[in-house]
Structures are given as structure tokens and as C-alpha cells.
């Protein structure tokens, strides 16, 4: 097996203005608010865990009125020095894009917008695996955006329909581990997606429904270290047998908004195509 060629440099945004202020996925309940201090502590813990595993973390400024800016995975797609900003489905998140674009532009990235008006929610719905970019659609991203994404980045896209609203982004159902292995939540994929999985991933680690709903797939892989929101024993045994080190990093405050470790990070060292 060969380690992932990406995943050693991340963009994150501190939870200065984070909170459950609206409900745009089944996990969010404005009646269940997040504790700001606890959230900051968990976020600092994640940054520390990533750095300890050998990853570099860059931090962008938090901004008021966009509490979910903290979930940088949805900022857009990074391809070398190219940045394709997300086009969010919900108006509540659309205000984030101006800050994301400003950060990448300031860093000298070429910013290429998706044409038309199709939605695509960035790396949250698109993860590279082997030579292709696996991208989810239905709940948040539109299938029609995948062809545009391919045209802009040169990536060979493999489209997967996400059929469970609770697993609304691809990164809640799919986590590439190396060039042959990936964590997959069959609960979230339709039968064509699972057929595709057979062709694409030689050794998948299939999550049970409970494991999937515990956000096991929303993990960050740095070489052979996996930073996970939680790791049930069965999953842990398999990952360890494959030679991975597991770091559990509680992010319970962010789970209240439907996001885990992966959602809080955006890999900056991805090259597609």
C-alpha cells in the first residue's frame, strides 16, 4: 500500500463565532446550543492532534454572522494552486464564500468559479481517491456540477448519490485511507454507488449504520495516523490491523451542527487530474 499523497497541510478556522444558529441538516437543533468555551477547547485539541501527527495547519480569521465558516472543508475544491469556491445550497452558508475566496486570493491561488448556478459544497462533497475525485450529489451538491468541476480541474469525477439525509455530505460516508483502502458508509450510498465502490476501492472498511451515524467516516488521515471523532472497537481493530494509528479527538460541540473532524479541515496539498 501507498500512503495518501495529500493530507499534510490543512486550512482551519477558529470557532470564535460558531454556534447552532439555524437548522439546515437533521443534526442541528437551535434548542441544543453549542458551548463556546468547550468548542474552542475541542478545536484547539484537533489542531494539536493534527500537528502532532505531522500536519501543518493554516488558520483563517473567523467572521461574525457565518457560524459555519469553521467547517472549512466546504469552502471549495483545492487543486494545486487553483481554488474552486463552493456554491452553497442554503442561503445561511452562502455568506461564507466571500471570506474563503478572499483568503485563497490573498495566498495567490487562482480562483475559478463554477459556471451556471449548480450547487457544489467543496471538499465536503469531493474527496480524491487514487486517480479519481469521488463526489457526492443530491442533498447538498447537484450532479450537474460534476461535469463542470471536471472541466475546471481536469479531474476524473466519480459521482455518488447520497441517499440518507443524515449523511448529507460525502465526507460523512467516505474517507480515503491510502491508495487501496477507504472507510465507507453503505447507509449513505445508493446501489449504483456501492457497485462503483466495488470497482474503485479494493479494500473498503464498511461501516455499520450506527458507526456511520457516529461520524466515523468524518476523519482526517495524515499518513498512517487517523484523527477520528470517535472510533468504535470494531473499526479500531481493523484500522490497527492495517497499520494505522488512531487518535480519537472529541468534537462533540461541532457534532451538534452536523460536523466532525474532517468537516473542520480543508486539505491544501491536493492536486487533481
Amino acid at each position, binding site marked *: 500500500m501507498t500512503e495518501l499523497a495529500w493530507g499534510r497541510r490543512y486550512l482551519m478556522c477558529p470557532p470564535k463565532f460558531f454556534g447552532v444558529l439555524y437548522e439546515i441538516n437533521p443534526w442541528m437543533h437551535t434548542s441544543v446550543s453549542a458551548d463556546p468555551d468547550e468548542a474552542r477547547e475541542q478545536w484547539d485539541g484537533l489542531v494539536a492532534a493534527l500537528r502532532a501527527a505531522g500536519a501543518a495547519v493554516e488558520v483563517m480569521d473567523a467572521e461574525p454572522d457565518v457560524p459555519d465558516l469553521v467547517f472549512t472543508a466546504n469552502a471549495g475544491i483545492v487543486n494545486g494552486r487553483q481554488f474552486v469556491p463552493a456554491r452553497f445550497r442554503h442561503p445561511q452558508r452562502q455568506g461564507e464564500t466571500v471570506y474563503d475566496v478572499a483568503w485563497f486570493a490573498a495566498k495567490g491561488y487562482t480562483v475559478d468559479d463554477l459556471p451556471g448556478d449548480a450547487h457544489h459544497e467543496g471538499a465536503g462533497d469531493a474527496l480524491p481517491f487514487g486517480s479519481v475525485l469521488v463526489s457526492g450529489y443530491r442533498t447538498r451538491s447537484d450532479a450537474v456540477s460534476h*461535469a463542470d468541476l471536471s472541466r475546471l480541474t481536469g479531474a476524473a469525477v466519480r459521482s455518488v448519490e447520497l441517499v440518507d439525509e443524515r449523511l448529507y455530505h460525502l465526507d460523512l460516508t467516505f474517507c480515503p485511507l491510502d491508495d487501496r483502502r477507504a472507510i465507507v458508509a453503505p447507509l449513505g450510498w445508493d446501489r449504483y454507488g456501492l457497485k462503483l465502490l466495488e470497482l474503485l476501492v479494493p479494500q473498503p472498511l464498511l461501516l455499520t449504520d450506527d458507526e456511520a451515524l457516529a461520524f466515523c467516516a468524518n476523519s482526517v488521515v495524515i499518513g498512517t495516523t487517523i484523527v477520528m471523532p470517535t472510533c468504535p472497537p470494531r473499526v479500531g481493530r481493523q484500522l490497527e490491523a492495517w497499520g494505522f494509528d488512531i487518535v480519537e479527538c472529541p468534537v462533540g460541540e461541532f457534532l451538534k451542527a452536523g460536523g466532525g473532524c474532517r468537516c473542520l479541515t480543508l486539505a491544501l496539498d491536493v492536486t487533481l487530474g
Partner: protein
Amino acid sequence: MAKEIVQVEGHIIDSLILAKVLDLILAAGADYQMLDVDIGRTNVDASKARIEIEAVDAEVMTALLEELHVHGVNRVDGADAQTVVTDRAGVLPVGFYSTTNLPTSVRVDGQWQEVQNPEMDCGLVVLPDGGLRTIPMHRVSVGDRIVVGRDGVRVQTPERPRGTSPFEFMNSDVSSEKPKTLLIAQVAERVRRSRADGGKLLAVCGPAVIHTGAGPDIARLVRGGWINLLFAGNGFATHDLESNVLGTSLGVSLQEGSPTEGGHANHLRVINEIRRHGSIAAAVEAGYVTGGVMYECVQRGVPFVLGGSVRDDGPLPDVLSDVVAAADAMRAALPGITTALMLASTLHAIATGNILPASVESYCVDINQAVVTKLADRGSHQVLGIVTDVGLFIRQLADQLCEPA
């Protein structure tokens, strides 16, 4: 039937999206035809497919398109039909769309409108309310909005009848070597089923129907309510009346088969008397005509159109000797007709074939195979030809459908 052309692109083959889309179309009870597929050559190249979808109705189509849209499938919006406003009565614009007799839809202001009265060899006029009708050349008025070119016009290919139908066991369009009794029983069953569904039957009759002695059987079918509309010429009506008034057809006794003395003038004397009465109905009313096909039509209120020709004797007062007016009268009588029987008539069968929509199930019965072939050659492909003696055919059909005489 509703038809749409859709397009899907991306890595649709490797992602199994195309397979899913086609499965969804079939699962919705719709059908598809791949118009073109452009398959990417490398792993990175995207593919593109254009698919024509056919669904049972617009409702199913709308639901299916909504579902397919989720998977990145978009409708290909074609162009509206082009139209030209006419500036001369009776003349279609240059480049006018020439119609077929098949179900046709036209896109006007982004909406597909079904042509209300498919008829071959006509123009298409956009009505003030946005509806579409076929229009024969001579009916064009100044200011009519006529479709030109082929953009925004869709013709639906004929559907092969499914289930039990005479077409099913007929492999050839024209049959001279098929078991006739079985065939006639099947036609009778189709006619029966059509009437049960609220359909109406048109009979197109040539004079041979009377000469072969089948007049009383047609009369039975009219009396039994099986025939709802009659198209014929001066000859058929004249010989029907002659046979009932004088017992001869073209002077030949229908009872004995022998020429009667002075019989060559019989039909002229009958025409003359009908002209004296003013119309066939008046002659029936006055008791001059007491039986036969025309008599039954008058008695039962079954409409008939008698189209004239240049060689007609008389003609009978009911005959429309202006052939353009006759064709218009035939057109006006067609709505509601679902089945047509064309019986031993060449000119009237072809005239009728010209104005019938392809959706009307039609049977052409003639002893001469050339008549049937000629009809098909003129575009009436929906016609099932039966090569047999018309007298035999009609008697057996009437026996199947009517109470014994």
C-alpha cells in the same frame, strides 16, 4: 404520449450514472432511445449522451424529468417552430411544413402543442389560442400563422398495436393468402371493441359493393348501428337506390343475374326521380325509396358524404360535385371516427386515406391487390389490406356483428 430529448454529461459511464438514468426511465414505465453517446476516450475525458424519452403522458414525463434532474439530466430545449404569416389566401408560404398523417407536436412559445387533427399533405396553422391544426392549402386565409421548416416539429412514429389484434397474426401488410373467416372474425372483434370504447366506424363504399349483392348486408350494418358515417360516390348511391327501386344494379337483376330489357337506363331513371324529389332524404320521405343502404342512413340519421367525379351520371342531388368541397365535407365529418372500412373503392378509399389520421384503424378490402398497395404507397401505412371478394367479406362481417337477417 409525451416525448422529450434530454442530455446528461460528465463521467456518466464510469460513475454508472447513465445506467441509473436508463433504469429510472424504464422503472417509470417510459421508454428511451439513445440519440447519440459521445464516450470519453480516457479516464479523464467526460462522456455525453442525448436520450429521447417517451412516456405515456405529460404527467409521467414531468415526474420522470424531475427525478432525472437530480442525477444531472437536463432537458434539451429545442427551438420553437418558425412561422410565417400568410399574405395570400389559398397559398401556403414558401418552405411550409408539409404534414404526415401521424400524431404531431409543435413547439410554440416554449410549449409543445399536439396537432388537433393530423392529416397528410397539409400545412400547420397556429391558432390564435396557441393550438395547432392542419390546414389544406385551399383553406389558407390571409393572416394565418403557418409553420415553416422542420424546427420545433415532432412526429410520433406509429405504435405497433399490442395485444390481440389482426395485425398480430398478419405478417404482411397485404394478405391474399390468409384464412379469411378467421381474419373477418378478428376484424369484427376489433369493431366490436372499438364501439364498446365509444369509437365510431366509417364505411367507404364503392359501387362493386352493390354489384356483388352486398348492399343488404351494408344496410344491416347501418340498421344495427355499426356504421356511423358513410363516404361514397354517385355510383354507389345510385346503384343502391336502383337496386331497391327496380331490383337491378346497372340494369342487371340482382335476383337472377341477367340483364333486364332497357336496363341500361334504369339507373338514369332512378337518378332522375330522386332529382325530382330534390334529395335522397326527400325520396325516402315520400316513400319512393323503401330499403337499402341510403334508406337506412336516412332513417337512422347516419350522415353520408357523396363525392362527385367527372364521369358521374346525373348526378344525384346529394352529390357534391365540387371535389374540394366534397373533401372538406369529409374532413368535417371525421371527428370521433376510430375505425375505417374501405370497401371495393379505389378513388374514395384513397381520398379518405388522404384525410385520415394514422391513428384510425383502417381496413381496405378489395379483390384487386393493386388498390391496397396504392393506398399504402400514398402514405396510409396504417391500413391493413385484405384481398378478397367484398361481397363475401361484408356478408360474413354482418353475420358476425348483427342479428341474423
